[in-house]
């Protein structure tokens, strides 16, 4: 039982990171109907920026919490600038183009980001100096660190804040209006371009935080780390129901749990035929099954085609 609990904890932490990244996919999809494949790589840029700053601050007299805050803020700043620039340069000119065009552009931007990062940071794994020595806690036989708790709680807080923001502020209302029908929203005096840019800004900021979390949690980063993370987060968004903010949260946490439990128990369940290296297969299998029975995701309603 304690092992089961431990797997749940592992899954929740992993899942909360997925969820934060998934929000970036789902918000952009909700408003533009675009799958922004560059989002995973944006997270990578945020992670590497934070890593660089933490490395340079390592050994200075700055307290650790302040150093991490600095790194997070810098990562957010870089990601937000980058996110908005990408939207302005790569996606906005294609807003009225057939759907395939911006999708391919997104893949192009993703590759551009990866190889630019490879130029800046080299293709090697970059490791984080040991700035954190997480304290351990044990509950019911399962141990977790304060860092894990922090990641999970911060992710939950950010998601809660986002839900509140979308529901209760003027800007959030404008976002929802744009999501429902951009043309009508435009007629009502909402500056669509501003809303879209703001959506990218918000998604990028959350992505940057997720990037910092990955760096702190695993202690390393490299130019290619955004690819798999992005793919998983995208899966999470689809699993929950892409375009739905609370769907992304649910999907992310669920995917983390599935992965963790799959790699923990798949070997025993299949009598050792399938090892834990099949956990990704299992995660995608769940996605396929969910989509067969609920094509619009777990919380998605059968969406009518948007204009």
């Amino acid at each position: 039982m304690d092992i089961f609990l431990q797997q749940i904890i592992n899954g929740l932490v992993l899942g909360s990171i997925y969820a934060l990244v998934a929000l970036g996919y789902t918000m952009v999809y909700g408003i533009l109907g675009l799958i922004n494949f560059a989002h995973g790589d944006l997270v990578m840029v945020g992670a590497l920026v934070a890593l660089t700053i933490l490395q340079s601050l390592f050994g200075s007299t700055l307290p650790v919490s302040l150093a991490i805050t600095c790194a997070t803020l810098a990562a957010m700043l870089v990601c937000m600038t980058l996110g908005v620039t990408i939207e302005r340069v790569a996606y906005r000119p294609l807003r009225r183009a057939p759907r395939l065009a911006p999708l391919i552009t997104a893949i192009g931007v993703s590759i551009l980001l990866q190889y630019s990062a490879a130029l800046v940071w080299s293709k090697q794994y970059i490791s984080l100096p040991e700035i954190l020595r997480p304290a351990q806690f044990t509950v019911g036989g399962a141990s977790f660190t304060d860092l894990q708790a922090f990641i999970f709680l911060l992710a939950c807080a950010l998601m809660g804040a986002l839900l509140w923001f979308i529901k209760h502020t003027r800007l959030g209302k404008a976002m929802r209006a744009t999501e429902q029908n951009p043309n009508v929203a435009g007629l009502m005096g909402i500056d669509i371009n501003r809303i879209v840019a703001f959506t990218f800004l918000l998604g990028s900021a959350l992505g940057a935080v997720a990037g910092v979390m990955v760096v702190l949690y695993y202690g390393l980063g490299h130019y290619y780390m955004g690819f798999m993370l992005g793919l998983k987060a995208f899966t999470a968004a689809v699993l929950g129901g892409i375009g739905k903010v609370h769907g992304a949260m649910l999907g992310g946490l669920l995917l983390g749990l599935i992965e963790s439990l799959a790699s923990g128990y798949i070997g025993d369940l299949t009598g050792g035929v399938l090892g834990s290296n099949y956990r990704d297969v299992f995660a995608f299998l769940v996605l396929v099954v969910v989509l067969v029975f609920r094509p619009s995701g777990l919380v998605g309603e059968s969406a009518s085609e948007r204009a």
Partner: protein
Amino acid sequence: MNRLQSFATGMLFASALLMQGCSKEEPPKPAPKAEAPPAETIVKIGVAAPLTGPQAHIGTDIKNGVQLAVDDANAAGLTIDGKKIKLQLVAEDDEANPTKAATVAQKLVDAKVVAVVGHFNSGASIPASKVYSDAGIPQISPSSTNPKYTQQGFKTTFRVVANDDQQGPVGGKFALEKLKAKNIAVIDDATAYGQGLADTFEATVKAGGAKVAAREHTTDKDTDFKAILTKIKGKKPDLIFFGGIDPQAGPMVKQMSELGIKAKFMGGDGMQTPNFIKLAGDASAEGTMASMPGLPKDQMPGGAKFLEKFKGKFNTEVELFAPMGYDAVFVFVEAMKRAKSTDPAKFLPEVAKTDYKGVIGPIAFDDKGDLKNGPITVYVVKGGKWETMEVVTPGGAPEAKPADAPAPAAAEPAKAAEPAKK
């Protein structure tokens, strides 16, 4: 449409002509060049290793070792059969990818290299070896330890490290006798190297009466091992063995201590790097053990001098296999000297007859191309550094403690048991 088509065809023709023109121009070029400095012939040596990606530091290390050897040989002046020879290095990046490895192998063959040092990964060396064998080019891997590499019946494959049929049992025996491990968990990275090493280790400890509580697999791209480690934690092992490379081993050890797993951690040569300690963090890495074919760097006959020269030239520490890469080049050079030829077909038989005292010690090959009596060293992390624990020489005289002499005896049944299991 028609006009466009004819235009395109025209362009195609033009470019084809242009390309032909270029290639026609090329062949005469080397001839006058070779005549101008009359006595110097360029002989190309290939090196293939992962120069980008998570294992880039190890691949670059090999390349640097080979580079150093080529420079040394050129500086000393090389004359074969009355002709002055200048060695030239051709480096290719196989990205630790089996498919890419075969491609770059073909590229090296097309570049007319006479010999190849590489590849790093067993998973890359094995597919590439077919290409070299077909072209009749000798290949020395400085590091690939999977037994299969030399067991394919190719005359061109050699290696200057002990293979996993030797390394796995040494690790297994060490775990049983020195660590007194009874309940062992084994993880591999599902590559030819990692799985091969883990298999031989597992066979040895099982034969020795220890229980293998869990056998888990991850991949060579993963960084999250919490779930597997949690599962292993439930089995309460006293030792965890990992067959894989440092980008996985580092985070794995770190996550182990985060999960509060107290078991000892041990692995193979792929994680015996400074980078492993950096990735794991000093505190978590402390006490981790790894076996590594070859003598400790400072105990190698030419070690101290080599390390100094290497540091002077590249301003970085030797990661792992630079000395093996260095020696591999000289094995080729010596073979060429004996054969009085730089033609691979002529000097290949001489490579097999190598009896050379290199930086890493005496080098001679058995009939399969494996290093004879390759020593294996077990290292441990102490105070943030890899330190030598003991040296085991299979088949030869034990260098450290007589207690280890039976190691090769234990290796034989393990070897026999392994294919049966498959």
